[in-house]
C-alpha cells in the first residue's frame, strides 16, 4: 500500500510540474470532500481545470488512460461542482483534464495530458 501511495504521489508531483511549465496556475492539490478527491485544481487563462492524475508503473494492466471509466468521470464532474460551491467561484469556463503518468522501466517517466476528457 505504501509503495502504491508513493508512486501516486510522485506522479501527481510530476503532473503539477508539467502543468506549471505549460502555463497553468495550480490552485489546490488533493482537495477532499465526502464525494472523493480532486488531485489538482488549476487555472489556465480564465478556465478552471479539474485535473485527475493517473499513474502506472507499466502497461501490464493497460494504459493509465484506459483506467479512467465513465463512472470516474461522473464523479469528477460532481466534485467540480462541489469545489465551485465550496469556493464560491464563477470561472468563465470549467474543464476536466486527465494526466497519465507512466513509469516504464529504463525510460524516463512520460506525461500524457488530455484536455477536456469529459
Amino acid at each position, binding site marked *: 500500500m505504501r509503495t502504491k501511495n508513493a508512486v501516486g504521489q510522485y506522479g501527481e508531483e510530476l503532473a503539477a510540474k508539467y502543468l506549471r511549465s505549460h502555463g497553468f496556475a495550480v490552485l489546490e492539490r488533493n482537495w477532499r470532500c465526502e464525494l472523493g478527491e480532486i488531485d489538482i485544481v488549476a487555472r489556465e487563462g480564465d478556465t478552471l481545470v479539474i485535473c485527475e492524475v493517473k499513474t502506472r508503473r507499466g502497461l501490464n494492466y493497460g494504459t493509465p488512460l484506459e483506467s479512467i471509466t465513465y463512472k470516474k468521470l461522473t464523479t469528477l464532474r460532481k466534485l467540480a461542482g462541489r469545489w465551485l460551491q465550496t469556493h464560491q467561484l464563477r470561472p468563465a469556463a470549467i474543464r476536466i483534464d486527465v494526466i*497519465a503518468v507512466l513509469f516504464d522501466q529504463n525510460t524516463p517517466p512520460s506525461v500524457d495530458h488530455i484536455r477536456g476528457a469529459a
Partner: protein
Amino acid sequence: MSLAHTWSVALVGLEGHLVEVEADISQGLPKTTLIGLPDASLSEARDRVRAAVVNSGERFPDRKVTIGLSPATLPKTGSHYDVAIALSLLTAAGVVEPGALKQTAIIGELGLDGRVREVRGALAMTLAAARASFERIVVPELNAGEARLVPGIEVYGVRSLRQVLALLRGTEIPDEAPPRAEPRLLSESLTRVPEVDLDDVIGQREGRRAIEAAAAGGHHLFLHGPPGSGKTMLAERLAGLMPDLSMDDSLEVSAVHSLAGLLTSDAELVVRPPFIAPHHTASLASLVGGGSGMPRPGAISCAHRGILFIDEAPEMHPLTLDTLRQPLESGYIEVHRAAAVAKFPARFMLVLAANPCPCGLSGTNQGTCNCTPQVLMRYRQRISGPIKDRLDIQRQILPAARNIAEGERPESTEVVAARVRAARDRQAYRYRNTGWILNSEVPGPVLRRDYPLDSASQKLLEDLYSSGRLTARGLDRVVRVAWTLADLEGIDQPTVDLTHQAFQLRSGEPLTDLSDARPLKGSMP
C-alpha cells in the same frame, strides 16, 4: 490529432461498392467507435483490429478513435474491412506514410495475432476495385489466386498485418507461417462436375438424343422413368457435353462462386459449366439465395451458365420448385432483404428427374404398379403446369435392358460434345448481332419474324396447334428445339421431320425417327 483514409469494398449481391474507411484520432479518453451502419461481425472489428495492431508490434493510439465507413447509409456487413481499418488507423497515427495507400483497395479479415484471414467474394470485390480504376488491391494470400484473375489491377497477397506494414515501409517482408485453408466440405459436393463419360451409357438412344439437344440449345429437360433406369446417369453426363464457359461467363460464374465460398484457394477461374444438384429437401432460401441481412447467392445462382439438376423433383415442395419460374424466364434472381436488394445471375439449364409414380413401377414391365389413379394424379401435379411448360424436352427413360438392341459401342462424350460445340457455333453465328447465344434464349416473336420455318414445318405446327396438341407457348418452344436439331445436323433450316421430332421431344412421345439404327443423319431427308 490526425485523420486518414483507406479504401475497401462492400458487396451488395455481386455488385461491389467502394467504401472509404476514415480514421480520426482526437483528444479524449481512449475509446474506439465504429460508425457507418456496421453489422455485428463488423462491429467486432474494433476488438480484432486492436488486438491485431498490438500483436503486430505497433501501438494502438491511446486516444479517442473514430472509424467511419462511408457511404454511411449503405449497410455494411462482414469482417473483410479489418485490414483497411487497421491501416487507416495506423496512417492516422503516423505509423504509415500518408499517401502510401493511394489508389489501393484493401480487403481481409484480421486474426487477433495479426494474421490476415481469407474472405468470401474476393473476386467480385477485386472486379469492383478494378472497375473503379484502382491500381492495386491488398488481399489475403489465400484469395490472391482468384483476385489475380481480374485484369488491370495489381494484386498483393499478404499473410499478416506485419507483412503489409513492411511492404508499405519498404523494409524486408517478414516470413510468416503459410495460412491454413479452411476446410471446404461444401464446395466439393456442390460444384462437383462428374468425371463420367457418355460411352458408359448403353442403349438409351432417346435419352442420349434428349441430352444432346438440351446441351446444344440450352433447353430445359425433364427425365422421368422408373428407379434405376439411368436418369441420374444421363443428367450427370450432360455437363460433360457442354462447351467450356466463355471468358465473360467464366468471370461471372467465378464471382458468384467466390461469394458463395465455393472457390478453392488455389482458385482458378471456373471454366467448366457448374453442375449443381441440390437435394429435393432444399429450402427456398438455399435455392434462390437469401440469408438474414445481406443476401447470399443460392443454388440456382451457383448453377449460373451450368446445370441445376433436381432429382426426385416431385418430392420437392411445390412452392420451392415454383420459385424457379421467374429466374427461368429472366435469367436472374432478385433477393429482397431488409438491408439490401441483391441481384444475382441465374441463367441455368434446369434438369428435372422424376419417377413415374410413387412406387416407381407405373408404365414399366418390372412389376405391377399399385398406385391408385388419385395418387398418380397428385404425384404428377406436384410439378406445376408453369414449370412443366418451360421444359422444352421431356423424355421417358426406360431401363437399358429393354432397349439394348445392338452391340455397337456407344458414342463417347468427346464425339457428342464436338457435335454440340459445332451446333453452338452455328447458333452464335446466326445470332451474332442480337446479344443472344442459344436457341433457348431467343424470344418467340423474334424467332417467328426473323427466322421463319419452311412452309411444311409451319403447316405441321399449325395442324398441331389447331388440334389442341400444342399451346401457343409450346409452339414457340417446339420451334426453338427444331432449330437446335437443325444446328446439330448442320443444316440451315429445320426440316419438317426435325420439326416433328422437336414436337415429339417436347410432348414426350416416342421418337419415330429413331426406329432405325444410329446415324440419325442418315434417316433425315
